[in-house]
């Protein structure tokens, strides 16, 4: 058999025969989910397809996270539709406050190494952190998965990203690596492909760090992102999927992570990435920490480490949306939340928060936001006349403390 990438291996096992980049296959899906942005259309398409019963109700999940709690009656009614569908179909529903779909799926162990997962959200590749093949799809593709339990896919080519090094500089995190990769590959550089992460640094990376890396493959147009399982610690035993030596990659990107500095994506594109040092002093009035990229406990720790015993700058707001109820509870228990609130942060419900501009903190005209999210397209946070810079939670925290973009240089690596 010809050597295979991780994506080719996972798809081959599911297709029942060896498949390689460029071939089409039909594969059974191990798990699927939709959110309040995508589920209503998926449910409608499922009905229109003549769907009566979900092919696999135990493998299908609905999450109310993008505009939750409902900011208006129109969205409230869409939430009602999802609740009704979940009751009728006997599938799981994670209601408001459960958290962001991707964090909820990982917190609840719904995805395992070697799985194929289809999510009606573009950041579904996040689960590649778990050595799974996870892919974002639209509502109608998802409706077909709901109906048939399967999907048709073109086996993607793969790009190999090798992270060299043993440890990151103080103040540098997985987010800075992710931004560097987006910069090198560009916003369309991984279109239709799988971004496979390898290298010695993997042994130092937590599950949360790996999620950051895979999360932002969406910003390069990738079909999926998968981290090689070296150093992956999970609370259950699993069969890791490694790439074969001499597997075929369209491109190899090598990054010396030890010399990496904190990075920032400037408005209005996530691939317009620079060293934070080039933008030090840019005034900001709004900081946001949260999202499926950087709303986890270690992210809140990174912010708390910087903000402990201090006050954010006058005229600046800091909004924090913990990625899930579990993250929120953990941050309450270990005192992180108190530190952040005492520093002046507004804590909002676990969910997408202001990331997608629906509610919970839309910026005003002319405002400059520094955000730990993954996208800074014009209008992303609900106002096309604001500007969004993307950086790590540590960079956001130090910037809201000073009132201008700053470098988190004193910090220890918090992975």
């Amino acid at each position, binding site marked *: 058999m010809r050597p295979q990438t991780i994506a080719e291996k996972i798809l081959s096992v599911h297709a029942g025969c060896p498949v390689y980049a460029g071939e089409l296959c039909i594969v059974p899906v191990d798990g699927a989910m939709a959110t309040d*942005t995508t589920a209503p259309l998926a449910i409608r398409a499922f009905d229109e397809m003549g769907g009566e019963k979900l092919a696999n109700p135990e493998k299908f999940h609905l999450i109310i996270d993008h505009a939750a709690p409902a900011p208006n009656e129109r969205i409230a009614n869409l939430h009602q539709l999802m609740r009704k569908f979940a009751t009728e179909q006997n599938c799981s529903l994670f209601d408001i406050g459960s958290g962001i779909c991707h964090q909820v799926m990982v917190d609840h162990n719904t995805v395992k190494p070697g799985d194929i997962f289809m999510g009606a959200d573009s950041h579904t590749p996040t689960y590649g952190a778990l050595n799974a093949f996870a892919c974002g799809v639209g509502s109608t593709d998802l409706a077909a998965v709901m109906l048939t339990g399967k999907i048709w896919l073109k086996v993607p080519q793969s790009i190999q990203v090798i992270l060299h090094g043993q440890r990151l500089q103080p103040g540098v995190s997985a987010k800075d690596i992710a931004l560097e990769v987006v910069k090198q590959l560009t916003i369309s550089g991984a279109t239709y492909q799988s971004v496979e992460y390898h290298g010695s640094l993997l042994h130092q990376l937590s599950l949360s760090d790996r999620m950051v890396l895979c999360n932002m493959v969406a910003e390069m147009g990738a079909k999926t992102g998968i981290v090689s399982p070296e150093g992956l610690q999970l609370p259950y035993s699993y069969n890791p999927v490694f790439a074969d030596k001499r597997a075929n990659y369209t491109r190899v990107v090598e990054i010396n992570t030890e010399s990496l500095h904190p990075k920032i994506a400037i408005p209005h594109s996530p691939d317009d990435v620079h060293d934070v040092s080039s933008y030090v002093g840019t005034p900001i009035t709004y900081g946001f920490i949260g999202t499926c990229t950087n709303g986890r406990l270690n992210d809140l720790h990174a912010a708390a480490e910087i903000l402990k015993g201090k006050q954010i700058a006058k005229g600046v707001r800091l909004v924090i949306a913990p990625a899930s109820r579990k993250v929120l509870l953990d941050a309450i228990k270990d005192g992180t939340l108190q530190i952040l609130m005492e520093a002046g942060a507004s804590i909002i419900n676990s969910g997408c928060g202001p990331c997608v501009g629906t509610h919970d903190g839309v910026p005003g005209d002319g405002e400059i936001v520094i955000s730990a999210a993954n996208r800074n397209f014009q209008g992303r946070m609900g106002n096309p006349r604001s500007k969004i810079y993307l950086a790590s939670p540590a960079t956001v925290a130090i910037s809201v403390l000073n009132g201008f973009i700053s470098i988190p240089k004193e910090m220890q690596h918090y992975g």
Partner: protein
Amino acid sequence: MAKAHVYQDNIDTDRIIPGKYTKTLDLSLLAAHVMEDLDPEFSKRFVSGDIIVAGDNFGCGSSREQAPLALKTAGVSLVIARFFARIFFRNAINIGLPVLEIPNHTIQPGDEIEFDLASGKVVNLTQKIDYQANQLPPVMLTIMQEGGLVPYLKKYKDFILS
């Protein structure tokens, strides 16, 4: 014959339909706001049946199917790009919005275009140039010919690759 409205590279779905409008099943609401952050004059200039032409990576970003739905409901008869972001491309075909990938197109704003979806042949009447679109995998071609994934699955009940 249809008029071309031309946009640059990397048009993301947030600019096709902002996230704040996506949470609805009322498609006319989507169409009312389509492209508004990118091109505030869009709804005034666009006539149903016109086509949208873009450079690289049209539809990048969010997986929202509301983006192709908004375009289709607004009356867009075809989107041509050098290449598309993958989720947008699948979504468009799944909901029955015709899309063609033409890596070497030279279409300019206002050009008059004629097209044949089945063959992928596109004629630029203004510049008197023909283009040939990239071929779709057979499964996608059938889904497009059936008018989308809903009618396709109603008819075939399952996916057929060839």
